[in-house]
């Protein structure tokens, strides 16, 4: 008698595992749903031109979110990325417009575009390293440490130009620093350069996270820092590295944004950090660390991107857009909790 009831119960569990699968793929399903919705509601939504525009918008947030995902996987957070976008853009813009001025030698060096890019990336990575050192060696909580660098980097960006914009960053032939706008506006085989950068970074980041010892250690640090340390993982190094990755990604975005505008503005990148966190969380990354996938983050960034651009095309007001974006993020986290509870139930035994 009881055997029949028990097997009926396991039938119900079949439904449950189907539900579990749906919940697991929820971000992907949400992306499809959002796309279909706008395809029906917004005129001209489905077109190659629009897909390219959306991808360019998404690339900016997604690249930041890749670095953010690494930091969050270790149980940290990086609030400084938006300011790093601003500062690295200003560094690049300043070098292109006014060169590297060395008053005591009385000379001005104009680095070429490649050198400018390298310097900007170095600056971003170095700020990441400072974040990492603050968090590990000085024991400052990640939220506070990166909140501090958020202000410092933003202030530095404003100081570089006294608050004004470096504009018309096309370079001069006689200085040999032309070609900067290609990063933001160039195309290769019809695909924008910024989207290509995203694809390369995403593939590398996903590979590193899943298939390298470094990636495994990142997950280990986020899962149980003490156990990881006792297993010989150099926790501090891993943490410093993820903040450096995040700073690097922010510098890449700083270059893309200033190149797209052919100008660098010191306020550029404000609140970008929040969008990056939102993309990671939407993609299933747990803020307590140890759980999340680069692929999920990319899909999360696309959900946000399609949502904002679609709403714009539908003519929905910017204020409503914010409300909707917020609700989507909350829904994502609620579903995440539901999935974890179901998964925990179905594997107890």
């Amino acid at each position, binding site marked *: 008698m009881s055997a029949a009831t028990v097997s009926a119960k*396991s039938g119900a569990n079949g439904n449950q595992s189907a539900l579990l699968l749906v919940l697991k793929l929820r971000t992907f399903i949400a992306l499809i749903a959002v796309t279909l919705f706008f395809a029906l509601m917004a005129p001209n939504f489905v077109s190659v031109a629009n897909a390219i525009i959306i991808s360019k918008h998404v690339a900016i947030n997604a690249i930041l979110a890749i670095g953010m995902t690494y930091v969050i996987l270790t149980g940290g957070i990086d609030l400084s990325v938006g300011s790093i976008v601003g500062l690295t853009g200003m560094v690049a813009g300043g070098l292109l417009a006014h060169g590297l001025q060395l008053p005591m030698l009385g000379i001005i060096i104009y680095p070429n575009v490649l050198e400018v890019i390298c310097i900007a990336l170095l600056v971003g990575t170095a700020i990441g390293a400072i974040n990492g050192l603050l968090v590990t060696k000085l024991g400052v909580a990640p939220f506070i440490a990166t909140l501090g660098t958020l202000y410092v980097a933003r202030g530095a960006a404003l100081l570089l130009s006294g608050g004004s914009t470096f504009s018309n960053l096309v370079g001069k032939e006689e200085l040999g620093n032309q070609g900067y706008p290609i990063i933001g506006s160039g195309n290769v085989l019809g695909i924008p350069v910024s989207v290509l950068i995203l694809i390369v970074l995403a593939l590398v980041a996903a590979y590193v996270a899943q298939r*390298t010892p470094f990636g495994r250690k990142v*997950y280990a640090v986020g899962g*149980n820092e003490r156990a990881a340390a006792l297993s010989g993982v150099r926790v501090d190094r891993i943490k410093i590295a993820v903040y450096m990755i995040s700073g690097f990604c922010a510098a890449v975005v700083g270059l893309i944004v200033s190149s797209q505008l052919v100008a660098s503005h010191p306020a550029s990148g404000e609140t970008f950090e929040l969008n990056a966190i939102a993309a990671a969380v939407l993609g299933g990354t747990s803020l307590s660390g140890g759980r999340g996938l680069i692929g999920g983050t990319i899909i999360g960034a696309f959900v946000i991107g399609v949502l904002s651009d679609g709403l714009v095309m539908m003519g929905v007001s910017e204020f409503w857009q914010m409300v909707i974006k917020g609700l989507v993020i909350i829904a994502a986290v609620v579903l995440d909790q539901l999935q974890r509870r179901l998964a*925990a139930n179905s594997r107890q035994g």
Partner: protein
Amino acid sequence: MSEVVLSARGMTKAFPGTLALNEVDFDVHAGAVNVLIGENGAGKSTLMKILAGVEQPTLGTMTMAGETVSFGSIRDAGKHGIGIVFQELNLCPNLSVTENIFLGRDITRAGFHIDRAAQRARAAELIGRLEHDIDPDALVGDLMIGEQQIVEIAKALAEDARILIMDEPTSALSASEVEVLFKVIGELKRSGVAIIYISHRLEELIRIGDYFTVLRDGKLAATAPRADVTIPWIIEKMLGAGEVVAKRPPAIAAGAAILTVDNLSLPGRGHGLALDDVSVSFRTGEITAIYGLLGAGRTELFESLYGLRRNAKGSVRLDGAELGGHSITSRMKAGLLLVPEDRQRDGLLQNLSVGGNLGIASLRRFTKFFSISKAEEAPLLKQVIDQLRIKTAGPDAPITSLSGGNQQKVVIGKSLLTEPRVLLLDEPSRGIDIGAKAEVFSTMRDLADQGLCVVYTTSDLKETHAVADRILVMAYGRITADLRADEATDEALVRASTYKLEQSAA
């Protein structure tokens, strides 16, 4: 026969793919110790969780005083007078002892103002009843595991429970603390409290048990009152048959000293020394047991050897090379490895798979061109899973799907994959059943026979004899006895473990 306060009939709990409990009947007698025994995965924990309201049965009924009851939550069970002391501690490390004891049911004035003085006095009284002198204002996070267990028991006592479930309460306690606990249990029995007692330590169960219930594979294997129960009977019902732990003679003679400790000292918490000028050496091919009471300095010794205690002074040499000032990672590379005592906190990565946990300390072994080679990783994982007989669906199964004993084996397996030369195991048998224990000990023997130096700590006298070739006793941060296993009597070990007490008494 004493009165039955709670009677469970036909308890069944189904999980996808398995029946954790299959029509089990269980009676709880008032004023008695109701023992629940079984191997890991036999269903004890599930039954206990149902009784405590943590989980709900798929089928089955529970009656109390003639009425059918069901518990939707742990609070629900609490209202029916059922309290529980979990095996894995459920305390907030950031709160004080008193705050933990009264968590969720503060003594208040006017319904909102916490009466700190009353709580503190009551907490001190409860701890006093357990014959401990833990400061009620101390932070729980600063206490040793054994002390935390005492707080956990005090917390359950504070509820005036009529039925008290204890899940392996002695697993972290030393012999003298166990005596204190048994005294408390005796007192509770006399006041009519029914105790449901779960433990792997058979001699303990025989001592204090009144009614025995043995589970095997989710089914009721046997039930009997104390008078009809012997240790062989329990083992037979649990396993079907078999020996607890068979001691094998070492295959090779102990070799040269590999790990040498000279004048190692470590300041204690607050006052005194946690380690007081310890000098000792360990040889290859030899298994050394370190016996001692809680706070004797065993864990501190291991942690100092492993580089976790920065303020330890003295010399630690592995194969003649000084390890002082080196990081954990470089000590691991040199071949020294620690298997920590608290596997939930220090051993497991809950977010990774079984394979991810096993491999994390030895990624170097299967890394090719900066990436993890699945082809190189898989056979190594399979080998260690087979070697330790880890019961798992495979290396990709989540670590949380394993039973406690198998999780412990994963922590040990992780260490083995690093190919250590000296293996330090802190309480390797804590919280695992006889079968798993025998496998762990037999693995230790195998490793020593392969020329490893194996050192483990234990609070269980039986376990000191189980595999060790040599037994050290620690007390108050010093080594008070160093004996060959065949010369060590229980009396000598116990005497050495209370060395300082005797001195001061004299």
